[in-house]
């Protein structure tokens, strides 16, 4: 199993550009999450999904969108990138509410 795979690993965007951060997991997990981690800070939940076709907002959803058309994929869309979205983004998945969470390696995004 590859686990949770995120692409790309690094990206530089100009203000106003859009992009999609890809996330896929091969563990058949129902729960998937997107977090952002700002320098020296903890994780903030952006969006999460409890199954295909179901998504919900986390703590900091503004400026982002997600979709969950399949169990495996949970892409995060940034529209009109802003410098405040410079961060490291982590995708994660878990099989159950009480299960451990598996994390991807992260995507380091810089908006200039």
């Amino acid at each position, binding site marked *: 199993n590859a686990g949770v795979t995120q692409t790309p690993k690094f990206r530089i965007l100009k203000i106003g550009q859009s992009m999609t951060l890809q996330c896929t997991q091969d563990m058949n997990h129902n729960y998937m999450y997107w*977090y952002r981690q700002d320098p020296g800070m903890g994780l903030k939940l952006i969006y999460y999904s409890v199954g295909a076709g179901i998504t919900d907002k986390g703590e900091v959803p503004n400026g982002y969108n997600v979709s969950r058309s399949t169990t495996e994929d949970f892409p995060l869309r940034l529209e009109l990138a802003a410098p405040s979205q410079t961060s490291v983004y*982590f995708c994660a998945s878990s099989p159950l509410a009480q299960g451990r969470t598996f994390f991807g390696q992260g995507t380091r995004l810089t908006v200039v």
Partner: protein
Amino acid sequence: AQSVAQPEDQVNVAEGNPLTVKCTYSVSGNPYLFWYVQYPNRGLQFLLKYITGDNLVKGSYGFEAEFNKSQTSFHLKKPSALVSDSALYFCAVRDEDSSASKIIFGSGTRLSIRP
């Protein structure tokens, strides 16, 4: 609403000494509690979890955590610290009674072990 707090931004310990990283939580129902470790430029790695049962939970790399319901705490401990334990540690909580199924992370504690 559920929340989790890590009151110390940094913990400094000499190698060979015991270490404690503190975590307190707030949930409306029964908590599911987790500890994760993050090494530089890496994703988070699972250390241990408490769901139910024995209040002392043993995890990876010699770490353990003690669940204390009356104090709503879940402190991470290790009897003898290693320099290689230096990393960023996150406590996380999920509310068993929450329909939202969100896992919330603390702000992190940087553990520094000096030789």
